[in-house]
C-alpha cells in the first residue's frame, strides 16, 4: 500500500505513561533509535492520576526498612501469587529509581533533614511512599517527560535534530503488531488519530506499556485510554497473558454525583489518618481483619490512633489493610444496609486533623471534592465506594528482561503480569513502572544490539491490518442498521460491572461469557459515521476489539479459578485454597474458533504451574505464616523444617 507513512526504529515503545517513558529513556541512553507511540498528547498518560506515592525502601523515615521488608509486604499483599523474582528485583531497585528521578529534576516532599519524605500506605510495614502531596504520579510523569526533552536537546546540540534518536508519535494508535515468518516481532501498524492516516513502524523490538483495562467496566478510576490495547495486541501476536482474573477494585472511589462515580480518592487519605465509618459513625474495619493478617493490625481504636505517632509500640489501623480486603469490607457494609446515602461508606479526615493540615497534605482531594461534589473535606465526611482501578494480570514476562513469550516483544508496567500477584499494594505501581520500565528498555536494547538480522514485515499482514482498521466505515448490509460503537461500549461496561465485578459467581460469569459472544458478533456489524479525521466513534470501534478480547480473558480466568484470593472473590468459592496458590491461568489467542474470527479472536485459558520460590527468599518468612498459604509439601524445604 502506497499511502502508508513508514518509519524505521530500533525500539518502538507503545504507551507514554511512566513505564513507556522509562523504557524509552533507557533504550535511548543505550544508544538505540527509539520511538514512543501514544494515544493521547505527550504528558497526559494515566500515570498523572496516581496520587499517593511511589514505594521504595529508602529508609528515610523508618531506618529499619529494607528491601527484604518491602519484598515481604509485596508478597503478602499479593497473597503469595506474585512472581517472586519480580517482587525481589522491584524491592531491591526501587530506591535507586527514585533517587535517579531527583537527578532529572523531580521535587519530592522532604523530611526535616532534607531527604525524600515517605508516607504510610496500606499493606506497607513502614512509611515507604515517596510522594509530592497527592499528585505523585504527575511529578513522575512530568520528570520523565522533561528527561526525554533533555535527551532530545542533547541530540539537537549534536545533530541539529531534536528527533534524531528519540521521537514521540502523539495521538497515534497502534492497532496491530507485526511478526515475521518465524513469529518474531518485526514492527507495528497504526493510525494518526488527527488525520486517520496509516503509519507503519519497522522495529525489531516493541515494548508494550499500554496500562490497564478499566474502561471495560462502568465504574472505574481509569481514563479512556485504558482499553487493554497492550494485553490484546500481545495475545494477537501470540504472547501469553497470566493472572487475568485478578482485577483490583480500589476501595475508595467517589460515589456521587453520578457523573464522577469512580474517580479515585487516594489511599493517602487513610495513610495520613483518615478513617472509614458506617452510617452510624462506627469504624467498621476492625471487624474485617482476616485470619492471614491477624496479629499484624490494631484491634482497638485507641491502639490504631496511637500508631500514627508511635509505630514502634502499636499496630497499624485496619483501615490500612490491603486494598482487596478494604474493598470487600465496604461492599459488605453497603450490602447489609449500613452504607451512606449514595451507596458508599464514609471516609472521615475532617474530624482527624485541622483544616489547614488537610489542605496542605491532600490538596487535590480538597479541590476534587469541592469542585465536583460541593463537599468540603475539611468540614464534612466523604462518601466513597469501590471502583475498578488496576489489573494485576498481564503479559507474561521474563522478570529480568521484560521479554514476553514472543521474541522481540517486551512489556512493562500495568500491562505486564506477575509482579503484584493477586493484589497490588498501593504505591507499588509507580515503583513497578520505574523498575520494570527501565528493565524492559534495557532488555529491548540488548536484544536489538545482539541481532544479526532484523525480522522482516510481511506486506500481506500490513494489508490485512489496513483493511481491518477501515472496516467500520463499510456501509451496513442491506436491511441491517449497523451497530453503534458507543452503545456496544456502554453495554460491555454495564455487563462487566454487574457480572465480573468485585464479587463473582459461576452463573454470572457464564452469563457474561454468553453476552460477550453476542457483543463479538455485533461488533462485526459496527458502523461509524463521518470520515477518518479525528473521529472518536471510529477510534472507539477499534478499541472495542481489544476490550472484548481482554474481557473474555478476565471472565474465563475468573470462571476457572474456584477460590477467593486478592482481586478475585468468588461468592460460591469464598475460601483461599492452597492448591490454587501454585497454579497460574494462562490466556492465549485462539486463531480458528468459529465464534471468533479476525475482528475479535477467541481467548482460551489453560492451567499451568508457578515456579517455586527460591529457598533464600522463602526463608525470609516465618513458616507459620507460610502455612496459611502453602501446601505442606511445598514447605518441606523451609529451614524451619516445614511440616511433612
Amino acid at each position, binding site marked *: 500500500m502506497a499511502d502508508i507513512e513508514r518509519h524505521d526504529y530500533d525500539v518502538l515503545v507503545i504507551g507514554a505513561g511512566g513505564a513507556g517513558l522509562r523504557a524509552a529513556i533507557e533504550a535511548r541512553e543505550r544508544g538505540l533509535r527509539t520511538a514512543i507511540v501514544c494515544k493521547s498528547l505527550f504528558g497526559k498518560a494515566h500515570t498523572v492520576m496516581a496520587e499517593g506515592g511511589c514505594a521504595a525502601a529508602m529508609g528515610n523515615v523508618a531506618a529499619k526498612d529494607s528491601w527484604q521488608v518491602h519484598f515481604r509486604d509485596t508478597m503478602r499483599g499479593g497473597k503469595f501469587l506474585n512472581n517472586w523474582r519480580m517482587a525481589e528485583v522491584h524491592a531491591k531497585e526501587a530506591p535507586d529509581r527514585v533517587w535517579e528521578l531527583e537527578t532529572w529534576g523531580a*521535587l519530592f*516532599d522532604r523530611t526535616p533533614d532534607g531527604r525524600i519524605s515517605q508516607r504510610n500506605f496500606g499493606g506497607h510495614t513502614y512509611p515507604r511512599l515517596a510522594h509530592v502531596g497527592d499528585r505523585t504520579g504527575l511529578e513522575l510523569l512530568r520528570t520523565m517527560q522533561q528527561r526525554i526533552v533533555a535527551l532530545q536537546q542533547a541530540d539537537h546540540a549534536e545533530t541539529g535534530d*531534536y528527533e534524531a534518536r528519540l521521537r514521540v508519535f502523539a495521538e497515534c494508535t497502534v492497532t496491530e503488531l507485526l511478526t515475521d515468518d518465524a513469529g518474531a516481532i518485526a514492527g507495528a501498524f497504526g493510525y494518526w488519530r488527527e488525520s486517520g492516516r496509516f503509519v507503519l513502524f519497522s522495529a525489531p523490538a516493541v515494548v508494550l506499556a499500554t496500562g490497564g483495562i478499566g474502561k471495560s467496566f462502568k465504574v472505574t478510576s481509569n481514563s479512556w485510554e485504558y482499553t487493554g490495547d497492550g494485553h490484546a495486541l500481545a495475545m494477537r501476536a501470540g504472547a501469553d497473558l497470566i493472572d487475568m482474573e485478578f482485577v483490583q477494585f480500589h476501595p475508595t472511589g467517589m460515589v456521587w454525583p453520578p457523573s464522577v462515580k469512580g474517580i479515585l480518592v487516594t489511599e493517602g487519605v487513610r495513610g495520613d489518618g483518615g478513617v472509614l465509618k458506617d452510617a452510624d459513625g462506627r469504624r467498621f474495619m476492625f471487624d474485617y481483619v482476616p485470619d492471614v493478617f491477624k496479629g499484624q493490625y490494631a484491634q482497638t481504636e485507641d491502639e490504631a490512633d496511637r500508631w500514627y505517632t508511635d509505630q514502634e509500640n502499636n499496630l497499624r489501623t485496619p483501615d490500612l489493610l490491603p486494598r482487596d480486603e478494604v474493598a470487600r469490607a465496604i461492599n459488605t457494609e453497603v450490602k447489609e444496609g449500613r452504607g451512606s446515602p449514595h451507596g458508599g461508606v464514609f471516609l472521615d479526615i475532617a474530624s482527624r486533623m485541622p483544616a489547614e493540615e488537610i489542605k496542605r497534605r491532600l490538596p487535590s482531594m480538597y479541590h476534587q471534592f469541592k*469542585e465536583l461534589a460541593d463537599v468540603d473535606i475539611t468540614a464534612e465526611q466523604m462518601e466513597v465506594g469501590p471502583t475498578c482501578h488496576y489489573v494485576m494480570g498481564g503479559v507474561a514476562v521474563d522478570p529480568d528482561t521484560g521479554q514476553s513469550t514472543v521474541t522481540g516483544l517486551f512489556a512493562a508496567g500495568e500491562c505486564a503480569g506477575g509482579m503484584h500477584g493477586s493484589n497490588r499494594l498501593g504505591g507499588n505501581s509507580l515503583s513497578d513502572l520505574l523498575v520494570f520500565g527501565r528493565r524492559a528498555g534495557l532488555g529491548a536494547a540488548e536484544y536489538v544490539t545482539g541481532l544479526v538480522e532484523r525480522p522482516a514485515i510481511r506486506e500481506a499482514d500490513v494489508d490485512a491490518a489496513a483493511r481491518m482498521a477501515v472496516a467500520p466505515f463499510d456501509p451496513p448490509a442491506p436491511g441491517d442498521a449497523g451497530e453503534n460503537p458507543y452503545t456496544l461500549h456502554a453495554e460491555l461496561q454495564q455487563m462487566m460491572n454487574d457480572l465480573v465485578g468485585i464479587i463473582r459467581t459461576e452463573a454470572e460469569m457464564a452469563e457474561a461469557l454468553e453476552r460477550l459472544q453476542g457483543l463479538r458478533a455485533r461488533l462485526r456489524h459496527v458502523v461509524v459515521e463521518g470520515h477518518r479525521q479525528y473521529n472518536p466513534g471510529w477510534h472507539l470501534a477499534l478499541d472495542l476489539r481489544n476490550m472484548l478480547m481482554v474481557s473474555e480473558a478476565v471472565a474465563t480466568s475468573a470462571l476457572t479459578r474456584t477460590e477467593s484470593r486478592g482481586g478475585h472473590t468468588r461468592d460460591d468459592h469464598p475460601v483461599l485454597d492452597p492448591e490454587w496458590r501454585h497454579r497460574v491461568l494462562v490466556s492465549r489467542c485462539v486463531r480458528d474458533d468459529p465464534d471468533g474470527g479476525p475482528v475479535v479472536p477467541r481467548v482460551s485459558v489453560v492451567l499451568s504451574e508457578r515456579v517455586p520460590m527460591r529457598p533464600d527468599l522463602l526463608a525470609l518468612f516465618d513458616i507459620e505464616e507460610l502455612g496459611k498459604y502453602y501446601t505442606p509439601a511445598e514447605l518441606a524445604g523451609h529451614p524451619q523444617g516445614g511440616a511433612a
Partner: protein
Amino acid sequence: MSYEGTFRVWRGDAEGGDLEDYRVEVHDGEVVLDILHRLQATQTPDLAVRWNCKAGKCGSCSAEINGKPRLMCMTRMSVFEPDEVVTVTPMRTFPVIRDLVTDVSFNYAKAREVPSFTPPPDLAPGEYRMAQEDVSRSQEFRKCIECFLCQNTCHVVRDHEENKQAYAGPRYLMRIAELEMHPLDVADRVPAAQDEHGLGLCNITKCCTDVCPEGIKITDNALIPMKERVADRRYDPLVWLGRTISRRRA
C-alpha cells in the same frame, strides 16, 4: 433532576466551520464534558473532543465555554441556568484541527527551548538534601497539568500570531522560574528569559493566573519574581558598575 439544555458547539476544521445548536439532556451533578459525551453517543458520533482523565488531572479537555477558557471536565453544569445557552468553542490561540480539538504543538516546541534541569556535578543520586521550605516554591509550579489555558488566554499571543516566535508564554516562563528556584539547579536562565523567551512582553495582567485550573499564582509567584531577577541583573546600578569595571579590567 434533569432538563433539556441548549448547547452551541463549534463544528468544523482548518478550512472553516460554524456554531451548531443542539438540544441535549442534562442530569444532576454533570459537567460540560458529560454533555459532549452524550452528544457523541446520541447525536454526533464524530464530534471531535480531546479528553483523557475526566478528573481535572491531565489537562486535555481545554476549550472556551461561553468565551471563558476552561477545562470541560471541571465545569459543572450547575453554574449555568437551565435556560441558558452554553456555547463551547475550541481554544482560540491554537490552530483548529477539528471541532473542539486544536493543534497545541506550539507548546511542545516552546518546551524544548528551555534548558533542562542541570544537576550539581558533585552530588550522587541519593545525596540530594533540600529543605521543604525551599522546594515548595518550585513545587507550586510543578502542579501545572499543561492544559495550555494560560497560553491560550495570554493576550501577547492570543490574536497576535506574530509574537509566537519570540514568546514562550506563561507556562514556559513559569518553567524557567521553576528551574531558577530549584534549590540545586546550577544553570543560569535569567538572561535568556528576557532575551530569548520574551519575558519582557508579559505585562502582568494576570489573565494566566485567572484561568489556571490548578490555582497556581503564575504572575505573582513566577513571572514577577523572574522580572525582578532580570531587573536586578540588568538595571541595578551597583551590579552595572561592578560589571562595567570588571569588563574594563578584562
